[in-house]
């Protein structure tokens, strides 16, 4: 028995136990503050599944050796473009609309991801710096593009002047909430109970399974080998650079699908600087889940996203309640996410 507990403890790891404990503590402290626990839990569940795929995008990137993909913004803008194009086409059927958005987004992401992978192959050893830089620059570049792309649909562009896209684009006419509402149900009283976005969760799991299968495919295994030992991989006749490009492109494509999933749940597309820090949150989540900069698994994603987003979902309302009318929540969010990244990065350097 003791053996068993020790094993389980070793597998989960101290940091995750601490964070899980903290999560429960904050959740309990919400009760005397008069917050609705069911809503908080529902929020946790929704954020978990809506961010999940974006975090999942870290797995092929880390496994193929480019490290945490701070440049996931590249996939995010691809997804946003795909969604915008789908709206522009005014597809009536929401399922078709989200399908087109994902297909177009993925296609753009794969092209960009291949180029990005080629770039990263030329800067081996400093991938994290370069990917952070790419992540920021693509957002800056798109800030210009969003202003000048020739979209005409009234949902997309500012009503005045007829040029430039809106900051936030409502999805209520197309696929907003589509996955969330599918097969959804509420535990307890409607409106006050625990809302379970079944479709969203199922979709998240489906993509998890696809990634899991990919990582067990011939290509996926070669890709992981390329990440952990280039010399070994080469000696088996595998082109390491090609594997890194595949991993990067796959990660970018998941970014595109991830942001569309996120947007449908949120109900809006957010352009311009909105996705600026998303990459950091994704990295933080997967590292919390127990991944290192060299190794990441699907379970790291599932656990990490739950803890990270759960903590934010619960902690922010609590802080709001304790210190109303301050911008502390935002500061706390920054501290949590950046602190975790620092902590995790310092950890990975040390262990060997």
């Amino acid at each position, binding site marked *: 028995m003791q*053996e068993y507990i020790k094993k389980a403890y070793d597998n989960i790891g101290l940091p995750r136990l601490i964070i899980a404990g903290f999560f429960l503590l904050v959740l309990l402290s919400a009760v005397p503050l008069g917050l609705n626990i069911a809503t908080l839990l529902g929020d946790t569940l929704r954020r978990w599944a809506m961010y999940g795929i974006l975090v999942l995008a870290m797995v092929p990137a880390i496994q193929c050796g480019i490290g945490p993909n701070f440049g996931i913004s590249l996939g995010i803008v691809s997804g946003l473009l795909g969604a915008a194009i789908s709206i522009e086409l005014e597809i009536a059927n929401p399922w078709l609309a989200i399908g087109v958005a994902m297909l177009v987004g993925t296609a753009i992401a794969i092209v960009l991801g291949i180029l990005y992978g080629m770039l990263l192959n030329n800067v081996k050893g400093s991938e994290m710096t370069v990917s952070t830089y790419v992540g920021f620059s693509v957002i800056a570049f798109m800030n210009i593009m969003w202003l000048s792309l020739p979209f005409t649909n009234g949902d997309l562009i500012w009503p005045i002047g007829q040029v430039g896209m809106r900051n936030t684009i409502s999805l209520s006419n197309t696929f907003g909430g589509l996955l969330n509402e599918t097969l959804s149900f509420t535990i307890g009283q409607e409106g006050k109970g625990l809302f379970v976005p079944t479709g969203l969760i199922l979709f998240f799991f489906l993509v998890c399974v696809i990634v899991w*299968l990919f990582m*067990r*495919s*011939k*290509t996926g*295994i*070669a890709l992981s*080998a390329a990440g*952990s*030992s280039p*010399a*070994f991989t*080469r*000696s*088996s*006749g*595998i*082109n390491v650079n090609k594997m890194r490009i595949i991993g990067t492109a796959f990660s970018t494509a998941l970014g595109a699908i991830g942001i569309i999933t996120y947007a449908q749940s949120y109900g809006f597309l957010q352009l311009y600087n909105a996705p600026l820090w998303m990459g950091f949150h994704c990295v933080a989540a997967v590292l919390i889940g127990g991944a290192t900069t060299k*190794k990441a698994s699907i379970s790291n994603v599932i656990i990490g996203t739950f803890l990270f987003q759960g903590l934010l979902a619960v902690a922010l309302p609590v802080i709001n309640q304790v210190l109303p009318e301050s911008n502390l929540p935002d500061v706390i969010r920054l501290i949590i996410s950046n602190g975790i990244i620092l902590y995790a990065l310092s950890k990975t350097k040390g*262990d*060997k």
Partner: protein
Amino acid sequence: MSTHFLLNMKNISKEYDGNQVLKNVNLQVKPGEIHALIGENGAGKSTLMNILFGMPVIHSTGGFEGTVEINGEQVFIDSPQKAIDYGIGMVHQEFMLIPGFTVTENIKIGREISKPSLLSHLFGKGMETLDFEQMARDARKALSDIGLNIEEYIQVAGLPVGYMQFIEIAREIDKTGIKLLVFDEPTAVLTESEAERLLEIMKVIASKGIAIIFITHRLSEVKNYADSITILRDGEVVTHKDIKDISIIEIAELMIGRKVEKLVDLAEDTRTLSDSDIALSLKNFHVDMPGERVRGVDLDIRKGEIFGIGGLAGQGKLGIPNGIMGLYKAEGTVEIFGKKLDLSKLGSALANGIAFVSEDRRGVGLLLDESIELNIVFSAMQIKDEFLYHLGPVKLLNQKQVRQHALKMIDLLDIRCTGPTQKVGSLSGGNQQKVCLARALTMNPEILIVSEPTRGIDIGAKKLVLEYLAKLNREQGMTIIIVSSELVELRSLCDRIAIVSGGKVSAIVKPDAPDAEIGLAMAAG
């Protein structure tokens, strides 16, 4: 009064994840003696030394039980730095050099020499400048002491394994204030003559009063150079004796628990080798492998032959297989059964039925973070599409088949492990070597090239491996090329042995050629 011991390790026990690898082990070493630590693969030799040296792997896995005394005083060593402070030096089984650093930097790391500068007068010792010249001089001296001919300013990355071994040793020799030196299989990648030179150096060091603990699987070295011996079996001490009271045969018996006779018993030979049936042909073959350059080799290896390649470290014997496999830039012609290889294309040798076991097992031979089973099937899966489910264009790992095959290989090669899912990085050195072999054998190649196949393998397992190679050759007609620094091994198995010197083949000899002839060929060029 009892004898004075420099090192006294008492009742040492250690477990990894509930797997007891050391049980109440005692080890006593006197000043100025060479103490041999002997045991099978996985007996716990490296683990015992890692405890002595305070390696992080010990303390991150729950520490150990027992006490360590140095000069009669109990000490707690929980980091390598502490071990160094107590005057302990260690040459690890798996090299611990920093690839991006030069030879000098690797030798001097942590013990840089500085000289006063303008700033240091003002701000103290931290601001002194490094005395590169002095450091380079020291490095030169340490290198020439052990007879290694290499520029001290080149980078360690990409050097052949034999060099790395010497650099590690130079680093330890250069240290001052050393009381105890540990050598974990320092001679595994060296030829007899190189090993002898190293052992002579060890004798000189010991005569200065420094104690030496020496791990090896070459028992003749033990008999000729050690003063006393401790034998481990399955994590327990079976004997502790003066070397004069024990014979090589007794050592071997105590260590593996049964008798070993000849190195190999060859199966009956029914092959007919023909000079017109050539498996592998090299013409004017050049390889640009740093430290192991090949400068124009012509060789014809017959189908069904076991062909040996020997020679001193740095002469190019390792360059030949690495060039054929496309791991280093090569020129010239390589023909496999008459078909020309495209040397510029990675993996073309593999695709044409050649498998290779690299001498650099941690760098090239293994995925240390992955399971034994994945390591074993990796190449066959990637190159021959085996161990996969084929669902249209999708190829998924067939876990069941992988497991079955891995279990078979573990049994066949006697890989000592907790199971097929154990991480390769946590196996003992010799067992890692067996996993490398298993991976190549899984390819079921027409031509098998093995480089230092028995590096770090104990005598029992060595017999097993060599006999298995012979069996593949005799029964399946597999052509086998063995590159090895161990002449005995080459002699026991090969039909012909090429001696490489100065990047060229200086002679091709029969396995029973006299030592003098081979020695001459090795020194030629």
